[in-house]
């Protein structure tokens, strides 16, 4: 019996229909099944009368065939041989096979060989057959999508989300097994990309991934590629991670003797007590971050110290709301003095925040600013400070004829807040202030992140009358080209220049260069962190306009600062 092909050419989704291959040596059965499939209106049906015809059609249309409905007892090449031929072929393997049979034994055997489902003979009611076919195709298509997404395309390792899923399942079934979570990444990977090109950077990642893949296979684990140059491993407890580091170093050396990539690892051991896989990897990651940029150390373990830090951080995050409500946050003012006049004159001050915590006492900003910057909570603190400053200024203005402007800090998240301008203007109105009373300190690195957006925002704030200071200048990566287009009023030199100026000649030269840039831009320079006479004299000599630091005054509470204003007004 010759089977006729109903369709030729590309079959998939022709008129949005899926292609199905029906293989049966009995033409009556083929036609009957074809009629059932046709009645659904969702399929284009191809027909084959035996295994040889079937394989020829599969070879031609394998990319578009959504399912094969396969009879088992056929002349020439039977159904089992067809299953075998489909399952061993890389290209055909994904095509689901539904076996048509009246034999129980055959059902089991074909399922074991990789068939997705079976349709018993004599055929069931069409609705049942159609439902089974539909379900099989759905499952297979879902699996294809999942397989495409579950792996990172560059390295072939699992994608992070799937890795977390798999690790959670592994954890559930191997409760008593000691597992380690490892986060691995490369110091300054972007430099490898920049210096040697992206292709080489990719090769480095692929090499590391290959080594890791072998390692986790040998150690009952799984591995994933996280963002960028980060790798995640979930493996059986290891007493030492040096061997893995050595394997990676050797393989990278084989790749090229030019590239020196410093790999660092954060390890969280004995994870069995924790249930949340993302939290486990957060810990490994935290350990890994402690040795960022430290070329002496390559492996860091999550230990009690880090755990204590993490618990402390959690407490601070938990307590911030009460801290603001109960005004535990205090604004301190560090004066800035004009040093180019005869005697230094109080010109302005920077508002700095402290946290008078009911349990931990006075917490310095270094302990919470970067933490709150990470999770966006810094905005709450910033808003609190701005309001406090506005309130203080209103009071001072009522008492004194002369009041100096106060600069407040803006975090990255403030800068990207579309409501920033109206918030600031609202404060001015509420407290009867002028924008010129408020200086806004924006860190240099925020400028380089999204310069177009920042430029237009700052232009708007300046046209409102605010004075904008670029903070930490020299620590970021502003290009000179960018600086010329940047609308700013003041440059604040990064503290490290002043702090290191004793160390060598180069640092002094750097300060002079910054002074020249400021001169070119026609903006004044503020030097922070000035602590001694020598620093002061040098800065005065090279033309620095304003100085802030312990040499004149540490940050002081509001009452003390008010005393300075009082003296200035006398």
């Amino acid at each position, binding site marked *: 019996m010759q089977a006729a092909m109903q369709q030729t050419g590309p079959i998939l989704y022709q008129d949005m229909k899926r292609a199905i291959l029906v293989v049966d*040596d*009995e*033409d*009556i*059965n083929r*036609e*009957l099944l074809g*009629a*059932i499939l*046709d*009645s659904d209106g969702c399929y284009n049906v191809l027909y084959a009368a035996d295994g040889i015809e079937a394989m020829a059609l599969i070879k031609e249309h394998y990319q578009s065939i959504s399912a094969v409905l396969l009879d088992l*007892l056929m*002349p020439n090449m039977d159904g089992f041989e067809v299953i075998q031929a489909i399952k061993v072929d890389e290209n055909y393997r994904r095509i689901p096979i539904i076996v048509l049979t*009246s034999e129980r034994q055959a059902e089991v055997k074909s399922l074991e060989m990789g068939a997705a489902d079976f349709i018993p*003979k*004599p*055929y069931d*009611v*069409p609705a049942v057959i159609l439902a089974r076919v539909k379900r099989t195709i759905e499952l297979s298509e879902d699996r294809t999508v999942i397989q495409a997404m579950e792996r990172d395309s560059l390295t072939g390792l699992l994608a992070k989300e799937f890795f977390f899923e798999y690790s959670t399942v592994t954890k559930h079934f191997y409760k008593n097994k000691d597992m380690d979570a490892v986060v691995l990444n490369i110091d300054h990977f972007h430099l490898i990309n920049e210096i040697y090109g992206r292709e080489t950077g990719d090769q480095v990642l692929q090499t590391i991934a290959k080594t890791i893949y072998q390692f986790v296979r040998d150690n009952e684990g799984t591995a994933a590629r996280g963002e960028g140059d980060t790798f995640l491993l979930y493996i059986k407890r290891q007493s030492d991670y040096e061997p893995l580091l050595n394997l990676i170093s050797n393989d990278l050396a084989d790749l090229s003797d030019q590239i020196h990539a410093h790999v660092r690892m954060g390890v969280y051991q004995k994870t069995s007590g924790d249930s949340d896989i993302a939290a486990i990897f957060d810990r490994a990651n935290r350990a890994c971050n402690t040795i960022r940029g430290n070329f002496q150390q390559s492996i860091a373990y999550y230990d009690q110290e880090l755990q204590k830090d993490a618990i402390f951080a959690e407490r601070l995050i938990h307590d911030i709301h009460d801290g603001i409500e109960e005004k535990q946050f205090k604004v301190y003012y560090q004066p800035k003095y004009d040093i180019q006049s005869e005697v230094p004159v109080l010109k302005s001050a920077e508002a700095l925040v402290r946290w008078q915590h009911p349990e931990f006492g006075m917490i310095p900003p270094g302990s919470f600013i970067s933490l709150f910057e990470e999770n966006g909570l810094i905005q709450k603190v910033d808003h609190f400070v701005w309001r406090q400053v506005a309130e203080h200024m209103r009071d001072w203005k009522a008492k004194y004829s002369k009041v100096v402007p106060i600069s407040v800090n803006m975090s990255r998240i403030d800068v990207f807040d579309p409501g920033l301008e109206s918030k600031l203007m609202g404060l001015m109105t509420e407290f009867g202030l002028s924008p010129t009373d408020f200086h806004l300190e924006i860190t240099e690195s925020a400028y380089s992140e999204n310069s177009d957006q920042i430029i237009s925002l700052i232009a708007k704030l300046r046209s409102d009358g605010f004075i904008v200071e670029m903070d930490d200048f020299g620590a970021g990566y502003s290009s000179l080209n960018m600086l010329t287009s940047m609308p700013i009023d003041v440059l604040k030199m990064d503290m490290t220049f002043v702090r290191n100026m004793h160390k060598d000649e180069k640092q002094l030269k750097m300060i002079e260069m910054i002074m020249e840039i400021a001169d070119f831009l026609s903006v004044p320079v503020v030097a922070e962190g000035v602590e001694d006479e020598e620093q002061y004299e040098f800065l005065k000599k090279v033309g620095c306009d304003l100085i802030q630091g312990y040499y004149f005054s540490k940050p002081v509470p509001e009452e003390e600062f008010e005393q300075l204003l009082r003296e200035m007004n006398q």
Partner: protein
Amino acid sequence: MLTVDAMKAFGADTETALTRCAGSEALYLRLVGKVPDSEDFDKLEAAVKAKDYDAAFNLAHGLKGILLNLSITPIADPVSEMTELLRSRKDMDYSPYIQKMQAERKKLTELCKS
């Protein structure tokens, strides 16, 4: 001309078969019309006579599939019984089954011609 009623009178389970044909009488009657012409009936008879039970089983199994799919019960019954016996390659006298099968096939041929 063959009709559904004639098939029903012949003993076929037309209701089930029609459901299987997605409700199409035309398809059902067209497929039933092909059955008596199948060479497999005569091949089965010859294989059984020659005691070629492997070939006989394959032929009986194939016919059974078609006959049950179209619910042509009078022919399907002897073929199904034969299939089960042939599955274990039982050496016996199959002529009663063959005669019954051919007799019912002949009736169906008549129905198709009428």
